[in-house]
């Protein structure tokens, strides 16, 4: 099992993501600089971490989503490689079009950082299967632009196809239909604003995130 974390200029949860992956797989994640052009073929799971790639300039995730490595991520994700983006990583995935919709400025217009209760909207996905009977988890959120938008048609499709994976119990940012995390139509690409990698340690944020990583790793 080999995993990789992509590093963009001003990614800032890259180390946190790598720690989570190491904790679950027992193996160091490979750190891949955004100027690289290829994800090594033996990588089984790619995480696009949170942060402020390119300072969130222009639009969050926009500039990063056009970087060389992302081209290859898109190509491999379309062939089935599991790819997950958290926070800025979700924004980047939405900008590539791998995930539908867009992330807009929070409804309250302020950055919001707090532990957030999430309901598991689809417990059978590759990213939630290990949760068993658990219906609710707590992951921290920390973002300025996490207000998920998609047109009604897209939202209906997402809900109908079980592609809404997590919903906010107490919507912090105005996201449409309380959506916190979604996946693509094949279920291998996943994005959400909350940070599961910040919930892998009882001293810091709880351990609900461990099960999240376990789910996807076990599915591979």
């Amino acid at each position, binding site marked *: 099992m080999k995993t990789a974390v992509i590093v963009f200029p001003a990614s800032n949860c890259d180390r946190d993501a790598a720690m989570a992956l190491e904790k679950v797989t027992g193996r160091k994640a490979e750190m891949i600089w955004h100027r690289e052009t290829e994800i090594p073929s033996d990588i089984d799971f790619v995480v696009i971490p949170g942060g402020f790639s390119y300072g969130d300039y222009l639009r969050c995730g*926009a500039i990063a989503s056009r970087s060389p490595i992302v081209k290859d991520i898109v190509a491999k994700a379309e062939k089935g490689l599991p790819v997950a983006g958290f926070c800025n990583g979700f924004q980047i995935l939405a900008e590539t079009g791998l995930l539908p919709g867009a992330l*807009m400025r929070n409804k309250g217009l302020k950055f919001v950082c707090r532990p957030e209760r999430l309901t598991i909207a689809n417990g059978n996905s590759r990213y939630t299967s290990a949760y068993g009977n658990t219906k609710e988890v707590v992951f921290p959120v920390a973002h300025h632009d996490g207000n998920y*938008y998609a047109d009604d048609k897209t939202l209906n499709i997402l809900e109908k196809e079980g592609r809404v994976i997590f919903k906010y119990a107490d919507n912090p940012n*105005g996201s449409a239909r309380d959506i916190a995390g979604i996946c693509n139509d094949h279920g291998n690409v996943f994005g959400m604003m909350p940070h599961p990698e910040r919930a892998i340690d009882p001293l810091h944020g709880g351990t609900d995130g461990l099960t999240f990583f376990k789910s996807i790793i076990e599915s591979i």
Partner: protein
Amino acid sequence: MKAIVHIGLKPGVLDPQGRAIARSLTDLGFDSVTGARQGKVIELDIKGNDAEKARQDVTDMCEKLLANTVIESYRIDIEN
């Protein structure tokens, strides 16, 4: 040459910033304001002086980077 790109949210996409601006303005007593929308302008310096070519290039830039066409629309002005 200069290209001025105006980028705004598509109609129907909720604009939390615009709404907040309208609300603050009425709070400040500017009752005549009935709505507000916020967009951005990107001003580009472009080499050369073929306006038609520049417009094509900038359209390409908008599609590839400057605008997110899921939520935004854009308009380009070329100035000499």
